[in-house]
């Protein structure tokens, strides 16, 4: 399964090469051409069959990078200090397994045993600069193999949790390897217009890759595929779960970075309703995606976002439903075909 290969590759922001290699292998057979730009975005071109009404080119993007860590300093005893890359809650990394650098040196993030914790310490959240990675290797060995600037990824195996029902799977980085895997599926089909698949870099550190990809591609419209917040555990108050696992792909009306083009949102809703594909509206004003950088590029690019709900994102482990994933593939392909007739004025 492509999604398994993708999440078991490491691609912390700025170091997406391994993920890009997996994707090139996956899309090579169905691409007309592809290139890697100056920042590392993988841009795949699928030429149109012709006959498109009004819309000449469409960019669909998904980001290759994931949140992770970077080595800042190696202590004399071999303990590795680090800082986060992208938005990570310091509470989720303690006592987790990591792999360091391209050699994937195994390590664990150390934690003080509860026996030694003072009451006040139990209530305090440790800062990243107070934590350390323990490789179990000698100080000399660490000093030889690990330098400041080395990337560190969470060491989480992909696993099927439930073969039936919601077909849940667990792994790291479904944000946004889910989007990457959907986009690879979308590329297998062909469309009336030119389709540009942009697998972008550095989304988690500020939508950087998408900004330059959108400038270069300059499409008529854009879609962004994401793995998004899902907070559907039971709560005391009747408040939004942001999205719900198993309720279908989530459509964005607006988030912190974009107000989605209403015509494109309507197109997605119409396609879902016509095909009986379940969908949900994501809680507005939460989070941000590459669409934030894409829609304000050049003279403005109408953009929309479709996402797969993923529990526990931006932590070492996340959970998603392959049902939602499969529906997302169907919905994106169908919406693109629906767009072949053009976009209403």
């Amino acid at each position, binding site marked *: 399964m492509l999604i398994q290969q993708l999440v078991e590759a490491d691609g912390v922001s700025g170091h997406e090469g391994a993920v890009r290699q997996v994707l090139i292998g996956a899309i090579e057979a169905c691409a007309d051409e592809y290139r890697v730009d100056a920042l590392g975005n993988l841009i795949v071109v699928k030429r149109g069959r012709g006959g498109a009404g009004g819309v000449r080119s469409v960019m669909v993007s998904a980001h290759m990078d994931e949140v992770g860590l970077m080595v800042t300093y190696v202590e004399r005893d071999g303990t590795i200090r680090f800082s986060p890359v992208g938005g990570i809650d310091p509470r989720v990394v303690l006592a987790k397994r990591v792999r360091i650098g391209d050699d994937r040196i195994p390590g664990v993030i150390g934690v003080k045993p509860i026996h030694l914790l003072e009451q006040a310490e139990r209530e305090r959240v440790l800062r990243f600069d107070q934590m350390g990675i323990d490789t179990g290797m000698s100080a000399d060995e660490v000093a030889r193999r690990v330098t400041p600037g080395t990337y560190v990824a969470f060491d989480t195996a992909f696993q099927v949790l439930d073969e039936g029902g919601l077909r849940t799977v667990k792994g790291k980085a479904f944000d946004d390897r889910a989007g990457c895997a959907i986009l690879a599926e979308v590329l297998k089909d062909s469309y009336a217009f030119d389709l540009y698949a942009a697998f972008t870099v550095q989304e988690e550190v500020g939508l950087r890759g998408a900004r330059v990809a959108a400038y270069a591609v300059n499409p008529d419209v854009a879609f962004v595929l994401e793995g998004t917040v899902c907070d559907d555990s039971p709560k005391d108050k*009747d*408040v*939004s779960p942001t999205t719900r696992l198993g309720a279908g792909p989530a459509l964005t*009306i*607006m988030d912190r970075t974009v*107000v989605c083009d209403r015509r494109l949102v309507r197109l997605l809703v119409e396609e879902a309703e016509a095909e009986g594909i379940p969908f949900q*509206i994501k*809680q*507005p*004003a*939460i989070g941000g995606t590459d669409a934030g950088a894409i*829609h*304000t*590029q*050049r*003279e*403005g*690019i*109408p953009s929309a976002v479709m996402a797969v709900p993923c529990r526990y994102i931006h932590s070492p482990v996340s959970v998603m439903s392959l049902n939602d994933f499969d529906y997302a593939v169907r919905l994106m392909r169908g919406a693109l075909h629906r767009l072949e007739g053009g976009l209403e004025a």
Partner: protein
Amino acid sequence: MKELIKALVETCGPSGSEEKVRELIAAEVRGLATSLEVDALGNLIAMVRGKGGGRRIMLAAHMDEIGLVVSHVDERGFLRFQPLGGVPTRTLVGGRVRFANGLRGAIGAEEKGLGQNDLPRFDQLFIDVGARSKEACPVRVGDVACFDRDFVDLGDRLIAKAFDDRIGCAILIQTLKELGETPNDVYMVFTVQEELGLRGAQTAAFGVEADLGIAVDVTRTGDTPEARTMAVGLGGGPAIKVKDRGMLTHRGVRQWMIDTAQVAGVPYQLEVLEAGTTDGMAMQTTKAGLPVGVLSVATRYVHTPSEMVDYQDVTNSVRLLVELLRRPPRL
């Protein structure tokens, strides 16, 4: 001009849903502009072709206003919401909102966990549209609302919601009406999504490729009881911006605005704003950059449902803009 102002401020156009404001402005300027177009993000661009010898000048005023977006409809039909733009929660409780379809509602606050004098957080507030259940509630997640307040004419002073920045829109429309012949190609851009981060101005400025820009927007004042110090007040004339948190205005444009005001006998004041910014920032940094100035209208109680402006400041702003546009700019 008060009729135009009233119509503009009583129209609902939260960021991202500016279409009603756009329709109103398009109807006002249609006969006056050489061309009128709506771009990919929804900016309305009215262009007046000059008779030659001038420059390409972009003026920007934003159509959007701060508002609310529904984020959840609970089982009993209450609506949770998030802000669109910088909405201070202290003005919300007991206030009323209006949805695009005209539906109105009241804003309530949770009681548990909130003392009499506590400022509520957004997640402690809700909108009540009188629905008895989720099924009976006519509002859906993603629907947007604006504050529900009437325009009040106090004579010299006016009160309304959304003077930020419908007063700028009114000034641009009136300037177009009074302009007559100009040597300059004038692009009046009514922008979207300013309150969310100058998004419309960014793409419009990229497309217009102006030689020079002027943003028209509101600024706060220092003339109310125990106000933070600020040398801008109601009735002092159009404020010519020197700086705000997002930009330093171009010295040449600023001096041109000052000189023009002095020659024409238009009162003016200089503005140094410690917070906030305007579409001018996005215009200034587009492509290879362009010289940009900002004309601000002194406004009390900015981002509350009851903003106040001085009518003379408004008409003097129009006079200044007309004077600026009638000749080629001299920087």
